[in-house]
């Protein structure tokens, strides 16, 4: 059977990836596939990510939106913020619906039913979709290597439904499903699922990376690398949620940097050609986890021992990244060197605001 060869796009990689959000980069495309006017909260991390991601991808793009904040808060009937085709799908259908779109374009282009360059096909799944209910569907799409990019916009909770714990909620994170109390002083007892590494380890032929809204050019480059990769790519992006994390609205980008500087969100890439992790990304500072925790109400109930436990966790991540631990961080992993985050009464007051 005669068939038409599928032509694919190649997007340029931007310079100076480690710059902050306030750095002006003239190479950024002017197109805005994700426009203002939606109903997300002020300072919404996921929507900042959405804008950067779609900007990096450009106009020949199709977006898939499983149920989550970025479905509910963005789209309203007869008024959506997407200048490119967008479709809602079920929260458990992130990978599978996206695979259907990708397969359709492969077949339609090959069979002469659609003419043009293969579009960027991007799925924007929240961490509830990506780490819990849609995990198998995403694994299926990565395993089968459809030419698409699946993004987990990781706000570490089910935020759309009113802040419930997901498999990505950090240890100690207060949510409405993991509230602190006399019997469970730390709130969330479990550590988060190591989702991105799981995706890299299980689907080594895919481009897999982590990123944060604190490093916009790095994020946009990873979007483009993922789209340029012939086959499936996966990106997990730290996207703070002021409603669930309880922080001052203008600090979203700061939080996106501090979380990396505290070792709680290692930024890395999996290279599918070399079959190895690239841990060379280094933040400008290295800080103890308490500097990240104290910015957020969701950690306001933690005791010294919990903070030390989190520091131990962060120290393991630094070791994984090949960073030699400063003495201060080793000391910080000892509860004796930590203080309680807040008095119980204060913690309760903070909990009221969640």
């Amino acid at each position, binding site marked *: *059977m*005669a*068939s038409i060869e599928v032509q694919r796009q190649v997007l340029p990689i931007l310079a100076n990836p480690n710059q902050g959000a306030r750095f002006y980069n003239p190479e950024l495309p002017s197109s805005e596939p994700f426009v203002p006017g939606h109903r997300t909260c002020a300072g919404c991390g996921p929507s900042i990510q959405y804008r950067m991601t779609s900007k990096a991808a450009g*106009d*020949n*793009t*199709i977006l*898939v939106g499983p149920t989550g904040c970025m*479905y*509910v808060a963005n*789209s*309203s*009937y*007869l*008024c*959506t913020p*997407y*200048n*490119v*085709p*967008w*479709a*809602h*799908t*079920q929260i*458990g*259908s992130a*990978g*599978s*619906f*996206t*695979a*259907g*779109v990708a*397969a*359709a*374009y*492969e*077949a*339609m282009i*090959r*069979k*002469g*039913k*659609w003419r*043009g360059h293969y*579009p960027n096909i991007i799925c924007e799944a929240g961490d509830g979709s990506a780490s819990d209910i849609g995990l*198998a*569907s995403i*694994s*299926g799409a990565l*395993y*089968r290597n459809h030419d698409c990019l699946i993004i987990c916009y990781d706000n570490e909770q089910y935020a759309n439904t009113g802040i419930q714990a997901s498999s990505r909620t950090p240890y100690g994170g207060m949510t409405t499903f993991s509230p602190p109390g006399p019997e469970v002083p730390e709130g969330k007892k479990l550590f988060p699922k190591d989702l991105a590494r799981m995706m890299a380890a299980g689907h080594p032929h895919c481009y897999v990376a982590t990123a944060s809204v604190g490093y916009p050019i790095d994020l946009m480059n990873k979007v483009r690398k993922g789209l340029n990769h012939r086959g499936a790519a996966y990106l997990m992006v730290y996207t703070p949620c002021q409603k669930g994390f309880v922080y001052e609205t203008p600090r979203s980008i700061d939080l996106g940097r501090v979380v990396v500087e505290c070792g709680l969100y290692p930024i890395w890439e999996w290279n599918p050609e070399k079959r190895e992790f690239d841990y060379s990304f280094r933040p400008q500072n290295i800080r103890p986890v308490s500097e990240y925790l104290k910015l957020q109400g969701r950690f306001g109930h933690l005791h010294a021992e919990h903070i030390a436990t989190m520091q131990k966790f962060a120290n393991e991540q630094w070791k994984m990244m090949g960073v030699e631990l400063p003495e201060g961080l080793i000391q910080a992993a000892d509860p004796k060197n930590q203080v309680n985050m807040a008095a119980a009464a204060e913690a309760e007051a903070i909990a009221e605001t969640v």
Partner: protein
Amino acid sequence: MPTVTATKKKTVRINGCVASAQAAKYADVDVIAAYPIRPYTATMMALAQMVANGELDAEYIVADSEHSQLSIAHGASSSGARVFTGSSGVGVQFAYELYSPISGSRMPVQMMIADRTLDPPGDFGSEHTDALSTRDMGWLMGWACDAQEAFDNHLIAYRIGEDRRVLLPQMVCQDGFFVSHITSDVELPDSSQVREFLPPYKHPYPLDPRHPVSHGPQIMPEQGPPLQLERARAMEGSMAVIEEVHKEFGEIFGRHYDPWLEEYKTDDAEVVFFLQGGHGVTARFAIQHMREKGLKVGMVRLRTIRPYPTDRVCEVLSKFKVVGVIETNMGLGSPSSGGVLYADACAALYEAPERPLVISFMAGMGGEAIVLKEFYWMTEKMIQAQKRGKIEKRTHWVGFEE
């Protein structure tokens, strides 16, 4: 560019599963979403081989679950591809979440179902509960009674579902094993006939970067009912298209189906069986046998259950004295405490000036064949009711009563 190899009309001996696969090939589907579960699996096995042989150019996706199968189908159909998927039994249930979103977004996905009893306890045999439990989700739905009819129904369903006046997904059902795994002669058409009958799929608003659209945004409560009404109207409005397409199918392929009902020996019948699917074939044989004994019995076989042909069912069934509904499905706690077909039949008959007596027979359960003596037994129950002028009880479990 024709992507299906030109073929001449020929008769082959194949089973229902392979007939369905052949129909998907003739329809030149672009995306196939597979996941194994007996007995429908044989359809996907046949399609996999066709793709491997280069007989069909399609993306063949082995999904990670039925939920994913239907999501893949939804995504591909939304992008403008013609899509084929399928399942059986609990597999149909696993995908349940997707049925309403697919019909609600008006994507003409096609799903082949070879029925299988739901769990417990892991019965392979055919009961229609799997597909019937989804009957109100906005999918066109009907049963074939043999492999030829299954083949034809797939082409007919694509044509109806993709019609811009309809734009609804379709469940094309056949009994597991009785139809899916029994071979019979099937006439495969000349590819030019299919080209004439089934134009390429073209959705009016696909996900196409050159014409951006948003599919399925959130709505305010007051915006929901108009959309529901549109979907209801599409289902109701499909009835005229269904009649038109069956007529055209007959003209092109020479097989003329009544889109709604098959009537068998009903001219002078006083009691009739009302059923759907493969048991229609055994019923025909049993009726011939009973006719030789002088019993005035016939059969009405429902071919399309969604949209339900209420007026036709009313007109046809009200001619008889007693209607025996053969359920082949479970409707636990239903109005008859039997299956679910009884309630639809009674609702259709409600406005008839003269209503027949209606009895529900739980027969063919678990994929058991309904044997001749059971047809005699059920006929006897109907004749007794006719003589008495009232039914003994609404539901009989055939084989469990004297």
